[in-house]
C-alpha cells in the first residue's frame, strides 16, 4: 500500500487516441497522484471517457505510454495482474449492469467473476447492500431502479473486490442532488476505510468537482490545467469552477462567451396565466408517477422544473402538452383545459425533448420545413419563416448539413429553432442542455432570455443543473412525483437559510423522504465492523485468489446470467424454444412434394365404351379427382384459367373405332403449366397410366408374345419404400434448423453485450475470453438439445417418420453438432457490432452452406471446387449423414463413426477460433 502512495497511481506520456478521423486524446502527458480523489472536468466529448477507459484497461492503447499501478498497460500480463485491483464504472446509468437481473443477482455475478466463493460473496454483498441502503430492494430488477439507485448498485458491483483504484465515469449525471450527496458520502466512507484507494472521477457537475482533492481540466483531447480546486480558482481569478473552466479555454473557444444576462421579470398587467396545473395526478397501474401537482405560470415567465431522472418531470410535461391524459386534476393552457384531441392547443406550444430527437436523415433545412408544414403554416410564409429562424438561431451556415454531423451545441440550437418555427406562446424544454459545453450553454440561455423578455414567450424548462435553475424566474423542486416547493430561487434559499440552491434542495428532499432514507445514513459506522477481516493486509491480491487462466466459477457466472436473461426475455425465450419447432412445422407441411388430389376433367368427343375405359383408368387413380366433364373449348379455357383444373384430357371423335382397327390415334392432354414442378409430376403420372393402358390393350389385341425378349428394371426405393417426401425431408431439415437458431442466439448473446455496453465487464474483470465464451455457450447448448428432442419427437409422432437406427448415437452427434453450431455463432459474433446485423448475417452465413453444400439436395460427393471444400469443413454435412443414417438407414455407432470424428474436432477448433478473435479490450 505504502509504495503506491509515494508513486503516482497512473502516469501517461504522449497518450493519443483516435477514432477514425476524430482525435479523442491528443498526445497528453500527466502523472496522477495516488490515494486521492482526482476529478476530470470538462463538457461531453473532450476525451474524459476515452482516458478513463484506457486507464481501466477496457480500451486498447494506440500511441503513447501508460502506467497504471506500477506497470505498463500495454503488457497483457500486467493487465491481468492489476485488473483485480481496479474497478471501473462506465458512463451511462447502469451501463454495465444487467437490467433484467435483480440487485442481488447483479452483485453476485460480479462476485463470481472475481472468483469469490459463496460464503465470501454473501458476506460482502450483504455488507455492501447494507451500507448503500439497497438492502431492502435486493430482489428488484436493476432496470426498475431510479438513477441514483442504479449508480449505487454500480458502485456495489465495482467495490465487491476491494479495488485499489476506483474509476468512475460521470457516476452522478442525471441523479437527484440528495442521492448525489449520499453517493459521495458513501465514497468518502469507503475511502476512510481504505485510505490507500485512489479514486478517479469524471464529472460534468462543477459544484461536485469543487470538493475533489485534485482536478484535471480537459478540452478537445487536451489537458488545460491541473491542480487542486483552490489552485485553479486562484490561477484564473474566478469565483467558481464553471467560470474558471471558461477562463482556461483557449481564446478562440471563449471569444463568443458572454455572461448570461436576464432582465428582471415583470409580471404582465393582465395577470393571466399561460400554464395552470391543478392537482395533476398520473398513475400507471399501482405506480403514481405524478402526485397531486399544482402550479401557475404567468405569461412570459421562465419557469424551471428541477428534479432527478424519473421523478415525474417528463410525465408532467406530457400532461401539459396533452400527450397524456391526466388520471386526476386539470391542466390549463391560456385558461383553457388541455384536451389531448385538441390540435389547436398544440399549435401554441413548442416542445424540445431531452435527447436530440430530430430526423438525422433530413438536413437542417428539411427538418425546419417538415415541422413548419406539420404545423400547417401558410405555404407562402414558410421559406421566410425558415430564413428568420436560421438567422435568429445562427444556423445559416449549416442549412444543408445533416444534423448528425453537427456539434452538440449547434444541434441544441436547431432543436430550439424547430420548436419555435410556428411561433408558439409556450416553449417546453426537457433538459435542453445536457452535455453541452459551458460556453454553448450560456449562449443557449441568452436566447431563452431574449425569447422570454422580448417576445413574451412563456418558457417551461426542466434541468438538473443548479446553476441553470438559478437563472429561472421561479423554480419547482420535484421529487418522486411530488412538487416540494415552488418559488424564486432566492426565496427558496432564504426559506431554508441555505447558501446554495443545492443545499436547499437537499434540505427539502430530506424533509420529504423523512424516515425511510435516514436509516441508510444511520447505519454509517456499522459496515466497517462487518467488512471482511484483514482485507487491507492481503491486498493487492484479492482475498480469494484463484487461477488466472481458468476458473469454472467465473465461467458459470456467465452461464447463470445468460440463463436468467433468456428466461426474462419472452421473445428470445420463445424463439429459442419454439423457433425451430415452428419452422419445422412450416417446412414439413409447406414443402411437401407429394402431389395428390389433382383435378382433371375430360372433353370426350367419342363417348364410346373404350374411351370411357380410358378415362376410368385415370379417374380410378389415387392421384386424380375427376371433375365435371367439359362441354366445349370455351368451358375448358375458363376452367383452366381460374385454376380449377390441373389436367384436361381430350379424346378425339372415333377414338374407340380407331383403336379397335389398330389405326393411329392421338389423345390430347393439357396440363396447367403455371407450377412447372407440379406439371412435371402430372405429366409423369399420366404418361405412366397411358402406357399401362396401352400395353393392357395391346396384350388383349395381340396376345402374349409381345413381351418376349423384353427385360425388367426393378426399382428398389431403399430407406423410404413408400417414397414419401416427409420421410426424406424431415431428417435433412433437422440439421439445418439446429444450425441456424442456436448459432443466431449464441451470436446475439455476445453482440447484445457489445451493443448494450456490458461487454466492459469482460474487458475489466479477470474473466478470460474462453470462460466468457464457453460460459455463454452452455445455456444455448442446453436449449438446442431441448430443441433437438422436440424436433425428433415431432418427426416421429407428428410427421410419422420411422426412426430405425440408434437414438443414442443420434443424440450424441446432436450434442456435438449443436456445440459446434453455437461455437460457430460465437465466431461470427466477433465480426458483428449490432444485433440486427447479427440476425441477418447469421441467417445468411449458416443457412447458405447448410442448404447448398451439406447434401440436402445434391449429394456432397457430387460437389466440386469451393462447394466441395466448404462441404468438407461445414459441420452440417456430417450431422446430415448421421441424421439420415439413424432415421432411415438403421445405422448405429460403428456405421457413422466416420461422421462423428469431424464433429468432435469441429467443436474445440471453433471455440479456439472464437477465443482468439474475441478482443479482451475495446479496439
Amino acid at each position: 500500500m505504502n509504495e503506491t502512495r509515494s508513486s503516482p497511481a497512473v502516469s501517461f506520456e504522449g497518450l493519443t487516441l483516435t477514432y477514425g478521423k476524430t482525435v479523442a486524446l491528443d498526445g497528453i502527458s500527466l502523472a496522477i497522484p495516488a490515494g486521492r480523489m482526482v476529478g476530470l472536468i470538462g463538457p461531453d466529448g473532450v476525451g474524459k471517457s476515452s482516458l478513463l477507459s484506457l486507464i481501466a484497461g477496457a480500451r486498447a492503447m494506440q500511441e503513447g505510454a501508460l502506467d497504471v499501478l506500477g506497470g505498463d498497460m500495454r503488457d497483457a500480463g500486467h493487465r491481468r495482474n492489476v485488473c483485480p485491483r481496479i474497478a471501473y464504472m462506465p458512463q451511462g446509468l447502469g451501463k454495465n449492469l444487467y437490467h433484467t437481473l435483480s440487485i442481488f443477482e447483479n452483485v453476485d455475478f460480479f462476485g463470481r467473476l472475481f472468483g469469490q466463493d459463496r460464503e465470501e460473496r454473501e458476506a460482502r454483498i450483504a455488507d455492501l447492500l447494507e451500507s448503500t441502503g439497497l438492502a431492502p430492494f435486493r430482489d428488484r430488477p436493476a432496470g426498475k431502479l431510479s438513477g441514483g439507485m442504479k449508480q449505487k448498485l454500480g458502485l456495489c458491483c465495482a467495490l465487491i473486490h476491494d479495488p485499489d483504484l476506483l474509476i468512475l465515469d460521470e457516476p452522478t449525471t442525471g441523479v437527484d442532488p440528495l442521492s448525489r450527496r449520499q453517493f459521495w458520502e458513501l465514497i468518502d466512507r469507503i475511502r476512510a476505510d481504505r485510505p490507500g484507494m485512489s479514486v478517479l472521477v469524471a464529472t460534468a457537475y462543477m459544484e461536485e468537482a469543487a470538493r475533489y482533492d485534485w482536478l484535471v481540466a480537459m478540452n478537445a483531447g487536451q489537458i488545460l490545467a491541473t491542480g487542486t480546486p483552490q489552485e485553479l480558482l486562484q490561477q484564473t481569478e474566478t469565483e467558481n469552477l464553471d467560470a474558471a473552466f471558461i477562463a482556461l479555454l483557449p481564446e478562440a473557444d471563449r471569444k463568443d462567451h458572454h455572461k448570461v444576462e436576464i432582465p428582471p421579470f415583470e409580471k404582465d398587467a393582465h395577470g393571466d396565466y399561460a400554464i395552470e396545473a391543478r392537482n395533476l395526478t398520473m398513475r400507471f397501474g399501482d405506480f403514481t408517477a405524478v402526485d397531486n401537482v399544482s402550479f401557475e405560470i404567468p405569461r412570459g415567465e421562465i419557469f424551471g422544473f428541477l428534479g432527478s431522472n424519473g421523478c415525474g418531470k417528463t410525465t408532467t410535461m406530457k400532461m401539459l402538452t396533452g400527450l397524456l391524459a391526466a388520471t386526476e386534476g386539470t391542466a390549463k393552457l391560456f385558461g383553457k383545459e388541455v384536451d389531448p384531441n385538441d390540435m389547436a392547443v398544440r399549435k401554441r406550444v413548442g416542445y424540445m425533448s431531452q435527447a436530440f430527437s430530430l430526423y438525422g436523415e433530413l438536413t437542417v433545412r428539411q427538418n425546419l420545413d417538415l415541422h413548419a408544414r406539420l404545423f400547417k403554416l401558410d405555404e407562402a410564409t414558410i421559406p421566410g419563416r425558415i430564413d428568420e429562424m436560421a438567422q435568429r438561431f445562427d444556423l445559416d451556415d449549416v442549412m444543408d448539413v445533416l444534423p448528425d454531423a453537427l456539434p452538440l451545441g449547434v444541434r441544441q440550437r436547431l432543436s430550439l429553432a424547430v420548436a419555435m418555427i410556428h411561433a408558439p406562446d409556450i416553449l417546453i424544454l426537457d433538459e435542453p442542455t445536457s452535455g453541452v459545453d459551458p460556453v454553448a450553454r450560456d449562449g443557449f440561455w441568452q436566447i431563452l432570455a431574449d425569447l422570454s423578455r422580448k417576445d413574451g414567450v412563456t418558457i417551461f424548462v426542466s434541468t438538473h443543473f443548479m446553476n441553470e435553475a438559478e437563472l429561472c424566474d421561479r423554480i419547482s423542486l420535484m421529487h418522486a412525483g411530488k412538487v416540494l416547493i415552488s418559488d424564486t430561487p432566492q426565496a427558496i434559499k432564504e426559506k431554508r437559510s441555505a447558501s446554495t440552491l443545492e443545499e436547499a434542495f437537499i434540505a427539502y428532499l430530506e424533509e420529504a423522504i423523512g424516515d425511510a432514507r435516514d436509516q441508510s445514513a444511520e447505519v454509517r459506522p456499522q459496515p466497517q465492523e462487518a467488512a471482511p477481516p484483514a482485507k487491507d493486509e492481503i491486498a493487492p491480491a484479492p482475498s480469494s485468489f484463484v487461477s488466472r487462466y481458468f476458473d469454472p466459477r467465473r465461467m458459470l457466472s456467465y452461464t447463470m446470467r445468460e440463463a436468467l436473461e433468456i428466461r426474462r426475455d419472452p421473445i428470445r425465450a420463445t424463439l429459442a424454444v419454439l423457433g425451430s419447432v415452428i419452422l419445422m412445422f412450416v417446412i414439413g407441411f409447406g414443402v411437401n412434394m407429394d402431389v395428390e388430389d389433382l383435378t382433371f376433367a375430360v372433353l370426350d368427343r367419342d363417348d364410346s365404351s373404350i374411351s370411357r375405359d380410358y378415362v376410368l383408368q385415370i379417374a380410378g387413380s389415387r392421384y386424380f379427382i375427376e371433375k365435371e366433364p367439359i362441354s366445349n373449348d370455351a368451358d375448358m379455357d375458363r376452367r383452366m384459367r381460374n385454376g380449377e383444373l390441373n389436367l384436361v384430357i381430350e379424346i378425339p371423335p372415333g377414338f374407340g373405332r380407331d383403336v379397335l382397327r389398330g389405326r393411329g390415334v392421338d389423345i390430347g392432354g393439357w396440363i396447367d403449366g403455371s407450377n412447372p414442378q407440379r406439371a412435371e409430376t402430372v405429366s409423369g403420372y399420366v404418361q405412366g397410366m397411358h402406357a399401362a393402358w396401352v400395353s393392357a390393350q395391346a396384350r388383349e389385341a395381340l396376345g402374349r408374345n409381345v413381351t418376349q425378349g423384353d427385360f425388367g428394371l426393378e426399382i428398389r426405393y431403399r430407406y423410404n419404400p413408400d417414397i414419401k417426401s416427409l420421410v426424406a425431408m424431415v431428417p435433412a431439415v433437422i440439421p439445418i434448423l439446429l444450425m441456424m437458431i442456436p448459432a443466431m442466439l449464441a451470436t446475439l448473446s455476445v453482440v447484445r453485450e457489445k451493443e448494450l455496453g456490458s461487454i466492459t465487464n469482460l474487458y475489466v474483470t479477470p474473466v478470460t475470453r474462453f470462460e466468457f465464451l464457453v460460459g455463454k455457450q452452455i445455456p444455448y447448448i442446453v436449449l438446442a438439445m431441448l430443441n433437438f428432442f422436440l424436433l425428433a419427437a415431432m418427426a416421429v409422432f407428428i410427421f410419422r417418420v420411422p426412426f430405425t437406427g440408434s437414438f443414442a448415437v443420434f443424440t450424441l452427434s446432436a450434442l456435438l453438432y449443436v456445440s459446434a453450431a453455437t461455437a460457430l455463432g460465437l465466431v461470427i459474433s466477433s465480426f458483428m457490432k449490432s444485433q440486427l446485423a447479427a440476425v441477418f448475417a447469421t441467417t445468411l452465413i449458416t443457412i447458405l452452406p447448410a442448404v447448398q453444400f451439406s447434401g440436402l439436395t445434391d449429394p456432397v460427393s457430387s460437389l466440386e471446387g469451393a462447394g466441395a471444400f466448404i462441404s468438407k469443413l461445414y459441420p452440417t454435412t456430417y450431422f446430415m449423414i448421421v441424421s439420415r443414417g439413424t432415421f432411415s438407414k438403421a445405422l448405429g455407432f460403428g456405421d457413422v463413426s466416420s461422421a462423428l470424428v469431424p464433429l468432435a474436432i469441429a467443436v474445440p477448433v471453433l471455440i479456439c477460433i472464437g477465443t482468439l478473435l474475441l478482443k479482451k479490450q475495446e479496439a
Partner: protein
Amino acid sequence: MLSSTVVQLGIKELRGLSRDVVMLFLIIFSFTFSVYSAATSAPETLNRATIAIIDEDLSPLSGRIATSFYPPYFLKPGMITHAEMDRRMDEGLDTFALSIPPNFQRDLLAGKSPVIQLNVDATRMTQAFSGGGYVQSIVSGEVSEFLQRYRASTELPVDLTLRARFNPELNKGWFGAITSIMNSITMLAIVLAGAALIREREHGTIEHLLVMPVTPMEIMVSKIWSTGLVVLVASTFSLVVIAQGILQIPLQGSLALFLLGTVLLLFATTSLGIFLATVSGSMPQFGLMLVLLPLQVLSGASTPRESMPEFVQYIMLAAPNTHFVILAQAILFRGAGIDVVWPQLVALLVIGALLFSLSLRRFRAFLK
C-alpha cells in the same frame, strides 16, 4: 387538413429511406438480383446425380449401359461390387446403384426377361423421383438399340400428346422469378414499415411528432403509404424490367389488375409490419421475429396449397399472402381477369382492414 400532414410525413419517410443505405440495398437486391438468380438458378430436376454400377455381366451390352451415364445429369459412374454397395449407400455416397446380373445379355437374347435392379436412396427426394425415370429410359434406350437388329416394333399406335398450357416448356425459371417477387413484396413491406416505426422510436422522434398537431392515425397512414409506394414501384419495376424484359417471361394477364392486388396486399402487410414493430419495440427483437418469415411458404407460393394438410390450408386463409398468391398466379400465369380473381381481392381488402384497425389500436396503446 388531414391529407397534407399525411403527405408531409410520408415524404419525410421517403427522404429518410433514401439515405438508408442498408434498406436501399435490401430493396434493390430483393427485386433485381434475387429475382434474377431465382429464375436462372432454378435447379434442373436431375443434376450431377451420383450413380454406381455393379456390373456382374461384363458383356458388351452391360458395358454399353455403364458408359451411357454422363454429365450434366449424372456424374461419371463408379464401378463397384455388391459388397461395397450397402456401405456406400449408407454413407450417402451414391444416390443410385444399378446392378446388372450375370449373363444379362445372354438371357435377354434368349428371351428370358432378365431383371436389372436399380437401388435408389429414397431419402434424397428430388433425385430419387425423377432420377429413377431417367435411369429407366436410358437403360431401355440402350437395350432396345442393342436389340434393334433382332426385332421390329410391335407398339400399339395410340399416342398421348401432352401439352402444358401457360408455360409450354415448363420453364421453372418463370415460376421461380414470380415466386421470388411475391416473397420480396411481403418481406419488404413488413420490414420497411416496421423498421420505419422502430427507427422513430429509437431516435425519440415519435414523441416529438406527438406534441405536434398530428394524430397516431396520420403517423401510421403516412408510413403505410410511403413504404407501400416504395415496394409497389420496386415490384412493378421488377416485374416489367427484370421478369418481362431481361428474363423474357411472357406474363399473361392485366398488369393493372395485378398491381391492384399488390396494393391491397401492401395495405395488409405494412399494417402487419407496424403491428410487429409495436410488439417487439426494439430493432433486434423485430429482427428476431423476422426469422419466422418462412411461414409465408405455407401461402402456396412455392408448393401448391393442395398438397398441404387441410387444417393448414384453412389456417393460412387468414394470411393475406395466401390470397395474393392465388391471385397473382391466376393473373400472371393463366391470364385470369377480374371475373376470376374478385374473391381474392375482397379477401385481401377484408384482411387488410382488420390488420389495419388492429395495428392502429396497438399503435395507439404503444404510444402511451
